Every structure is written in C-alpha cells, then in structure tokens.
C-alpha cells in the first residue's frame, strides 16, 4: 500500500476503473433501491417517494419475520452440513499426496464451470420420483424381493405390493441439500487453504506429547484452522440466506425463503417499495453476521496477541 501511495498516477490508473464499476453498478442501484424502499406504489409502474416507513413496518409483520427466521435456520443448517462434510474433505485433500491434491481440488471446483441453475435442475433429475435415487432404490427393492422369493417368502409381500418412490423433492430437505450442494466448494476451499498452512510439527508435537489422533484434531488442528472455519461459514451462510432459485426449484409450497418473497415483490407482485424494504432488512442481517464474525475472530486475535 505504502509504495502505491508514492505513485499516485499508477494508483489511480489501476483503481479508477474498478471504483467506477462499483459505483455505477453497485452503489447507485443499491441507493436507488434504498430510496424506493421509502416510497409508495401509485400505479403499475409509478412509485412516489414519500419517506414512509410503512414498508418496513409491513416487513416486520409476524408472517415475514417467520420467513426471515426460517431462512436463517435453513441457511444455518445448510452451513453446518457444509462444514461437517466439508472439513473432512478439505482435510483429506490437504494431506493427500501432492499429485492427487491438484486432481481433488479440481474435482471440488469443477461444478462451478456449469451454470448454477442447470446444476439445480440436474438435482431435480436426481431427486424426483422417477429420478436416479429412486431408480436405485427400486432396483434394490426388486433385488430384495427376488431374494425373498428365492427363500420362499415371496408370497408374503414383506416389502409391500409395489415399490413406492420416496418423496425426495419439493420439501425443505431438498432445499437444504440443494443449498449444501451449491455452496459446498465455498466451504472446502477456505478450509483447505487453512489446513494446508498448518505447520506439520504442531501435529507431531501433539502426538509426541501423548495425544491420540482425535485429541490432536480437536485440541490442535481444529483451533489452528478456526479462521478458515469462520471464513467458510460466512461465505456459505450469506448467499444461502438470500437463496431464491434453489427453494423455487426444489422446494414445496412451504419452502418459501426470504429470497423468494423478495423476488416475488420485484416480479409478480410488482411491489418494489416493499421488496426494497425486505432486501435492506436482509442486508442488515448479513451485516450482523459479518460483524459477529469480525467480533469473534477479533476476540481470538486479542487472546493470541
């Protein structure tokens, strides 16, 4: 930074385009939505800015608060699932032989090369009644039945007359799985970067001092990768909170998240002021999460310093 300041021409040349971009395509629209959130709908496209708080009052009605809460819970569960599955994956990659490492990392980020919408549709093909999982289960059911038939129990129809597909799609579980699937790499990458960085001698020192593998993991490895965990959690939680097309595609009627509600205000309901108010509430929530992260990691740092 210091040296950049000494060379203002280069500094401005390099920073002006991104600054301009951010201003025109991010700050200005954000400002517009913020202003609109204090407006009133007059006609189909007319919005009058009256600086009313009515939209915010409506946004904190129990109906919407409930959806906010549900979004937080679902994003939280999905984040936790990402962490629980992602940590061992990141750990395995960090400790894999050098050549395998690159391949595994590519495998983790490979889904990014495909549009998120298409990936979500692909999940439908996996989860639906006549999808891959149910076909697999049906095959298992047939095999089990055949086996029962072989031992002479076929007549009893122990496993039911007919295979009944498991309803995997259009419920909250499907939405959670969809979110986990979509944001999984965001969890693995920061974790991997952190685990990779640990000096191996810490691990060896712990073993040397008599700690077993599990003890070493929970007392040394996990605390030393705490920053990676925090980063991963935030990077997954924040977009998961605002997810809208995943619940749209994979969710049932009761799987509406706050993202869907907001999307509807801007589209079918055509109520931009209310949509704006909801958006900003969501953004304040996100800020809250970020502030919490900063506070937690700041406290850790404070202890270490």
């Amino acid at each position, binding site marked *: 930074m210091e040296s950049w300041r000494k060379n203002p021409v280069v500094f401005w040349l390099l920073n002006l385009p991104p600054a301009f971009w951010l201003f025109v395509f991010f700050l200005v629209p954000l400002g517009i939505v913020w202003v609109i959130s204090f407006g009133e709908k007059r006609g189909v496209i007319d919005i009058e800015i009256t600086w009313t708080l009515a939209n915010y009052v409506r946004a904190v009605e129990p109906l919407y608060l409930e959806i906010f809460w549900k979004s937080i819970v679902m994003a939280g569960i999905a984040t936790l699932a990402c962490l629980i599955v992602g940590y061992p994956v990141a750990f395995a990659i960090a400790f894999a032989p050098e050549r395998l490492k690159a391949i595994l990392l590519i495998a983790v980020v490979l889904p990014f090369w495909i549009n998120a919408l298409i990936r979500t549709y692909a999940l439908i093909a996996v989860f639906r009644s006549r999808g891959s999982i149910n076909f697999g289960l049906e095959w298992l059911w047939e095999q089990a039945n055949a086996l029962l038939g072989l031992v002479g129990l076929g007549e009893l129809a122990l496993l039911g007359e007919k295979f009944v597909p498991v309803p995997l799609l259009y419920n909250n579980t499907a939405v959670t799985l969809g979110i986990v699937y979509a944001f999984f790499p965001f969890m693995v990458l920061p974790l991997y970067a952190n685990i990779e960085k640990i*000096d191996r*001698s*810490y691990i*060896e*020192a*712990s*073993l*040397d*001092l*008599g*700690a*077993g593998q599990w*003890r070493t993991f929970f*007392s*040394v490895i996990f*605390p*030393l990768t*705490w920053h990676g965990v925090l980063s991963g959690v935030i990077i997954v939680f924040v977009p998961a909170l605002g997810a809208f097309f995943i619940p749209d595609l994979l969710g049932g009627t009761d799987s509406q998240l706050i993202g869907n509600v907001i999307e509807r205000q801007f589209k079918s309901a055509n109520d931009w002021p209310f949509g704006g108010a909801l958006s900003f509430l969501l953004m304040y929530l996100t800020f809250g999460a970020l502030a919490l992260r900063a506070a937690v990691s700041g406290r850790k740092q404070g*202890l*270490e*310093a």
Partner: protein
Amino acid sequence: MAEGQPIIRIREVTKRFGQTVTAVDDVSLDIREGEFFALLGPSGCGKTTLLRMIAGFETPSEGQILIDGQDMSKVPPNRRPINMVFQSYAVFPHMTVADNVGYGLKVTNVPKAEIRERAEEALELVKLGGLGGRKPDQLSGGQRQRVALARALVKRPKVLLLDEPLSALDAKLREAMQLELVRLQHAVGITFVIVTHDQNEALSMANRVAVMEHGRVRQLAPPSELYEFPNCRFVADFIGKMNLFEGRVAGISGEEVLVEVKGLGRFSLPGEGEASGEVGIAVRPEKVRLRREKPDEDMVAVHGKVSEVAYYGGSSFVYVTDETGRTISVNLQNEARTAEPGVTIGDELWCAWKPRDSLLLST
C-alpha cells in the same frame, strides 16, 4: 553419568525414501542411560531422519529400534517414553505458555491440580516462572524454546530428543543455552539426544558424539577422542581445523609406522600395523610451532612464507605457504598483551611439530 545401561538401541537401521534416497544407512549404536548424546554431521547426512525414527515419526525401512529394551516398531509416537523438542519449537500458538506446558499431562488425564503444579515446576526449571499466562507470540525466540523444553520435560520422559534446538538463536544466546541445557540435563538426569551440525555445540555439550556422513556413522566417541583421534579423513576434517598431508607408508616397526611425506621427509608416528600404501598425515594447527631457525632433527619441519594472519582475539591463525604451494595453518595463543603482531605477512619461517602429535589416517 555416562556409564549407564543402553536405553536406546539402534540395530542395523536403514531408512530409504523412494527408490533413490537412502537417508540413514545401516546404523547401529547404543545410547546410554543418563548421557548427553549428540548426532553431528553436515546438512543432509540423515541426523533428523534418525531422530524422527527414534521418536516414531518415521518407520525404519530395515532394522530395529529398542527403547528401554522394548521393540518400538509397533509403538506409535504418542506411546513412546520419549519426548522431542522440535527445531521450530512447535509451541502451540493458540494456547498460553502454561497450557502448552500442561498439554502433555492433560491428554494423559493427569489431575488438574497436579498439572498446574508440575507445569509451574517445569517453567521454574527453565527459568520462565511467572510467564505461564502469556501467549507464545509475546515471547522471544529463546523463551519459546524454553517453553518447548519445559513442555517436553514436564512429561518426565526417559529420553529427550532435541533437533537442532539452538539453531534459531543468535550466537550469544546460543552459547548461554548450551550451558543451560547441560545444567538442565544434570538437574533432571534424563538422557538427552541432540542433533546438531555445529561441532562446537556437540563437543562442548555431549558426553559422546556420533559423527554422521551420507547416512552412516563414521565415528562414535567422546569429544576429546573425536578431536585428538579421528578415525578417518572425514571426521578429522569435519571436527575442528586440520592440516592434512598426503604421504605413504615406508615401513612398519611394532607400534610405529614410518611415513614419508613430500617436503616433510621421513618420520615415525604411532599407528596401527595394517597401514600401507597411500595414507593421510594430519596435524592440528595448535600442535604446530613457528620457528625462525631450522628446528631440531626430531621435529617434523617445513619451511614457508606467511601468506595470511587472521586475528581472533584470544588466538590467531597464521597461514604459511610452503615451496610446493601447500598451506599450513598454525594456531598461536595471544598470551602477551601487545598490539604488535608477532608475525607478519611475508615472514619466512619454519613450521614444526613433534612426530607423535601427528596422526595417521588410512581412510
């Protein structure tokens, strides 16, 4: 102290990495209870690898390691009665000093009160009493190293392994810590095995030193024996300064070997009877005297010109180049207090030493 039973026995241990690297090559040695043992050798000679095999972080490709009579091949690092001080210290950054020191006790379910007591005691031992509440990044390098020491000692291991424990410290602190380590070892009576590539460190601290080269132990002996009676050119050259001449055996009579060295003439020196053909003749710089006149016949002598003088305070090294272009280094004690140099570059004089002060090296 150094007369104890073997506590670590290394039997024909070889360690290979992949197809091509043989880091440790057929090493057999015993480390005795209560001794201060040093593994000394140039970079890459396999010292760390040997130490890590003792600690259990590497498994020998061949051979066997016994600690206290027990075969260690199936024993994981956390079950071995030894502890290690890592080169990087590996003091856990997320724990306080006291928690670091207590860690090894906590994981083996020692009661809390005892942990606190023993941790405090160990910190006292390494002169860090009262710093238990600090975090590692509030400590200096030397203090961190003491934390690593205390953390290992608090476990009361049978053997303490130290991998280049002083290499990250500055010269002054390193010297102080050398004394400190010897004091500690006397105080706790635990066997210390230290890895170092610094010969001064090994010679000044250890009871016995194993000198390694290319994965093999070239000589295992107490420091004075290593210095005065190196058994091969490598050790002679690696330990201290040495003048080395190429010569050949001209005859053998009993315990004496008659050698002939170009420019030095013929002389007898003590040696094994089996020496023959080309041999090396070595003499330490401090055994060589400088004479203005031709010395007596019973001295080995060579005439030359002073090509350089290096002043080190307590002593000086004088480099004398003879007619054949060989350079002989001579160590002079600066006994009298004077700013006048005794010899100056260009002086013509004689280097001389007693035949029995030189050493016959057949390999």
